[in-house]
């Protein structure tokens, strides 16, 4: 079941926005025609493969590639020596800054291998089996070093050091000795000790989460060709081909203008395809041999060398008065960054208490490097981890106070005009409405059976705007083509076409959306941060509005009347003088040569005013007390979505986020052996939920419009992964009477907890 709750203030009449047309990219996807990253074949194309470190931490003493180069069929062999040794340089990324040197060193190790699977060399050969043979012939001499993966072990004095040049940032005075703590983030308000002194009840806990992978089905894949004149082309599946272009230019020391990146269809990203792994290597191989090079990761490479998000320790202490008013919060977050700094602990800190109006708090976050793959953005990066701890503690607080968990959250809910824990003042948020939606949903009152439990949790995500470009062109038969620079990872082609259709007054079938390459459309930030429907949608809307303005001018010219005599209604120019009749878009397109030439508009903008999103979830579980198995019986997710442009795809986003969150809560985890090697680098033992593990996930779209977007849209894709970890854990607590603090809540842990009751 899915519900859409319209807020009267947001009510507006739209013909296309808010409907559920078939997605324009659907037919190719369901018939297998869509061309993904690995699908492009070029004449003379070679196969590129990567030699990876078998050690979690090692100094690279020497790499001998002579034998590999001598093998018949091997056309190129590269190591870090084939790339410039870059200086440290922070650059703006999707939602977080990235260091170009670190990305380069993550693509190809120089001097040190920092995790099992770290690339140390690559080859291009005429066949995959020759490439494999060549990899085996590359001789790497390592000095194996002690490794550290556990986040607290990495923070401890005397831990094996990954980098000699990391001196914890965010600490005064600046440390003089290096450590694995790359950054400390602090967020405080009021007087936390005074706040706890006021409290009648305290809930506290220490929670842990395991590193988890985004789990996209499509492995990383690309084709690259380096022209004799230095002009390069890359085809790859990513969440942002402009980011791929910039990173390739910097890592290879090329001019951005010499690289053209064409986006392939993408088979899932969830944040994990916001960086590069293969593209710079494929370009370097192609540069060496002159032939196009195709690289496709195997699944175990995806697990060992890409993604994941942090494993973490979360310490939470909350205090409240008898009436439920939360008076103080104290939170410490310790996040694994993997081999290079940049865990999502900062957004973890910022979002931890974003749903709550708390007068006194301290939140401290540590970004800690570890001998594991460098973490990459994963859907609401950092927020599900801190929310797991906070929502577990809030649940315990409700128990101690004898309060309904939704009532406790309503009592302390942030509202319009309040200052968010992370700084800004909330405007036009729909959080309270979202809480009301689950409180009033039949699910919340539905009876439960034995060994069953119900959990509630909430979550927040910022959502962002940023740089976007859109071009709308009118065809000679009066239809429209909408081009943007954002890969479609969540149905954005449909929503772009719908917003253009709404403005132009065209039926949706007359608007064809495409994702254009870096040479064919203006710069666009990557698809991430739940920004595309908001920011790129704004650019599409403005481009369509410019066209409407232009069409009215053209009609006025044809009719020889003043422009203010022309209106645009249902896809046609209508003159106030009834004798003139109307001119449809098709008629105006046919006469475009006489009225100024082809009809089209391109808008580039930096979208401001993204509305933050809130979700509130109810989860019912049944626990088998003998096997420790958890069955998700029922799940309802309410979310403030601003305005759902295409409600079915918004519901799909919510359901997808919940599914990933449930996997994170129940079974997903990186398992390392004592040597720091990943033991479960495949979908058999890295257990994402399968379809039969999940019930239908019911959604409630709460529409509190964002006035800064032409149709009221807010970002929707990330919020829904934030509450499930807490919602599942709280439901399990209700079912078995034991607070489970360590994710994943796999059967052995649950059975042990039950036996220990």
């Amino acid at each position, binding site marked *: 079941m899915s519900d859409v709750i319209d807020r009267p203030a947001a009510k507006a009449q739209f013909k296309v926005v808010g409907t559920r047309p078939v997605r324009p990219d659907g037919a190719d996807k369901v018939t297998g025609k869509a061309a993904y990253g690995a699908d492009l074949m070029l004449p003379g194309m070679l196969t590129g493969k990567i030699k990876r470190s078998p050690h979690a931490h090692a100094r690279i003493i020497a790499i001998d590639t002579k034998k590999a180069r001598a093998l018949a069929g091997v056309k190129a062999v590269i190591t870090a020596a084939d790339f410039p040794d870059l200086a440290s340089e922070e650059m703006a990324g999707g939602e977080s800054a990235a260091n170009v040197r670190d990305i380069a060193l993550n693509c190809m190790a120089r001097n040190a291998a920092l995790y099992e699977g770290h690339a140390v060399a690559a080859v291009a050969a005429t066949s995959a089996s020759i490439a494999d043979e060549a990899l085996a012939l590359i001789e790497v001499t390592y000095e194996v070093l002690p490794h550290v993966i556990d986040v607290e072990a990495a923070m401890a004095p005397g831990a094996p050091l990954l980098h000699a040049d990391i001196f914890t940032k965010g600490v005064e005075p600046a440390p003089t000795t290096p450590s694995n703590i790359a950054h400390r983030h602090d967020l405080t308000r009021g007087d936390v000790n005074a706040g706890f002194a006021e409290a009648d009840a305290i809930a506290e806990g220490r929670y842990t989460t395991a590193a988890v992978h985004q789990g996209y089905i499509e492995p990383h894949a690309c084709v690259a060709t380096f022209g004799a004149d230095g002009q390069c082309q890359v085809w790859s599946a990513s969440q942002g081909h402009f980011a791929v272009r910039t990173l390739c230019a910097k890592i290879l020391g090329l001019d951005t203008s010499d690289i053209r990146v064409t986006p392939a269809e993408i088979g899932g990203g969830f944040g994990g395809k916001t960086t590069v792994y293969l593209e710079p290597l494929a370009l370097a191989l192609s540069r060496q041999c002159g032939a196009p090079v195709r690289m496709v990761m195997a699944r175990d490479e995806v697990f060992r060398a890409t993604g994941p998000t942090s494993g973490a320790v979360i310490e939470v202490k909350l205090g409240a008065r008898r009436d439920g008013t939360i008076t103080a919060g104290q939170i410490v977050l310790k996040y694994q960054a993997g081999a290079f700094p940049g865990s999502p602990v900062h957004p973890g800190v910022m979002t931890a208490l974003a749903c709550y109006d708390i007068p006194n708090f301290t939140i401290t976050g540590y970004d800690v490097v570890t001998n594991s793959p460098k973490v990459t953005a994963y859907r609401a990066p950092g927020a599900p981890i801190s929310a797991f701890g906070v929502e577990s503690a809030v649940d315990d607080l409700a128990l101690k106070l004898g309060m309904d968990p939704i009532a406790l959250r309503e009592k302390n809910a942030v509202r319009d005009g309040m200052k968010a824990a992370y700084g800004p003042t909330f405007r036009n948020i729909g959080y309270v409405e979202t809480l009301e939606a689950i409180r009033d949903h039949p699910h919340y009152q539905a009876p439960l059976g034995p060994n069953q439990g119900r959990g509630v949790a909430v979550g927040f995500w910022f959502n962002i705007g940023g740089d976007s470009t859109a071009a709308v062109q009118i065809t000679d038969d009066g239809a429209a083509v909408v081009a943007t620079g954002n890969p479609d990872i969540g149905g954005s082609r449909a929503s772009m076409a719908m917003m253009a259709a709404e403005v132009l007054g065209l039926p949706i079938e007359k608007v064809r959306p495409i994702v254009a390459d870096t040479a064919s459309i203006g710069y666009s930030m990557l698809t991430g941060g739940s920004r595309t429907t908001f920011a790129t949608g704004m650019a599409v809307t403005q481009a369509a509005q410019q066209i409407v303005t232009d069409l009215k001018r053209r009609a006025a010219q044809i009719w020889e009347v003043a422009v203010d005599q022309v209106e645009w209604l249902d896809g046609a120019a209508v003159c106030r003088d009834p004798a003139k009749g109307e001119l449809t878009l098709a008629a105006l397109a046919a006469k475009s040569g006489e009225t100024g030439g082809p009809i089209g508009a391109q808008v580039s903008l930096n979208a401001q005013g993204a509305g933050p999103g809130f979700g509130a979830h109810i989860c019912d579980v049944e626990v088998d007390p003998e096997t420790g198995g958890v069955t998700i019986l029922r799940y309802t997710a309410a979310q403030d979505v601003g305005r759902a442009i295409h409600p079915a795809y918004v519901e799909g986003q919510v359901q997808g986020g919940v599914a990933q969150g449930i996997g994170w809560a129940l079974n997903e985890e990186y398992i390392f052996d004592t040597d720091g090697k990943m033991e479960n680098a495949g979908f058999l033992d890295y257990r994402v939920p399968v379809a039969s593990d999940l019930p239908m996930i019911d959604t409630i779209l709460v529409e509190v419009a964002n006035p800064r977007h032409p149709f009221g849209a807010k970002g929707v894709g990330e919020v829904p992964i934030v509450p499930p970890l807490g919602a599942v854990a709280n439901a399990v607590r209700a079912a078995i009477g034991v607070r489970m603090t360590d994710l994943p809540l796999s059967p*052995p842990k649950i059975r042990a907890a039950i036996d220990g009751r």
Partner: protein
Amino acid sequence: MSDVDYLAPTSADAAAKALAAGGAAARALAGGTDLLVQLKSGRLKGGLIVDLKHIPGAIGVREEDGAFVIGAATPGATIGEHAGLVRAWPGVVEATHLIGSTQVQGRASMAGNLCNASPAADSVPALIAARATCVIVGPSGRRTVAAEDIPVSPGRTSLKPGEFVLEIRLPARAARSADAYLRSIPRTEMDIAVVGAAVNLTLDSGGTIIEARVALGAVGPTVLIADDAAAAIIGSRLDAAALERLDAAARGACRPISDKRGTAEFRTKIAGVLARRAAAIAYGRARAKGEN
């Protein structure tokens, strides 16, 4: 994948000859759902593949005087379509159906599951509980061995060079007999057993268990036959006390390891739980047969 030679002989003797000639690098291919994955992942290197599917009788189920003969390369999907087999051996069939996905069921065979010699193989506890035997063909002729004598340790079998399993035989059933198989996995499907338990039993007309066999998967280097667990329920009508004895005896039989899929402690507990639950299902099925 390194170079691979492929032969598809049309007789069992030709297959045995080919396998013997191929030496240590020769592999028999039935459904291939383990073999091809191992070749592709590099765990196995090249060599000779001898496809058994073209041998007459290698695919199919036939009934012989109440016994069933299942060709070595018979896919799981076909096994589930044989009504007589499903009626007689529901536990064997349900165990076989747990191997892989729907697509894999179109290829995966019980003989392959057995000869892959994983202690976690789903069909193997059910086959062993059922007292299945295997007809083995080799360079020196044919022999018949019990299913439990084929796997000897993880990934290793007692098959000699040139030998392969041609068919699996399930014995004729006494009245009021039934079996059941259960496994524990963290998900609902597409997974490998953390523990598996098969129970095969026969009742007298009064509902008392007169014969039973219990086999446990993934709690030892090979599938374990838990004789004490069977003894714990023989002579009972599977009352609560018998179930409790079964649980304890099954746990007592376990020799598990701790690994990424589960701790030894967890596996031991679950073996008792599943043995109990599988026995209850088999008992219910056997009683239902008595009522027909």
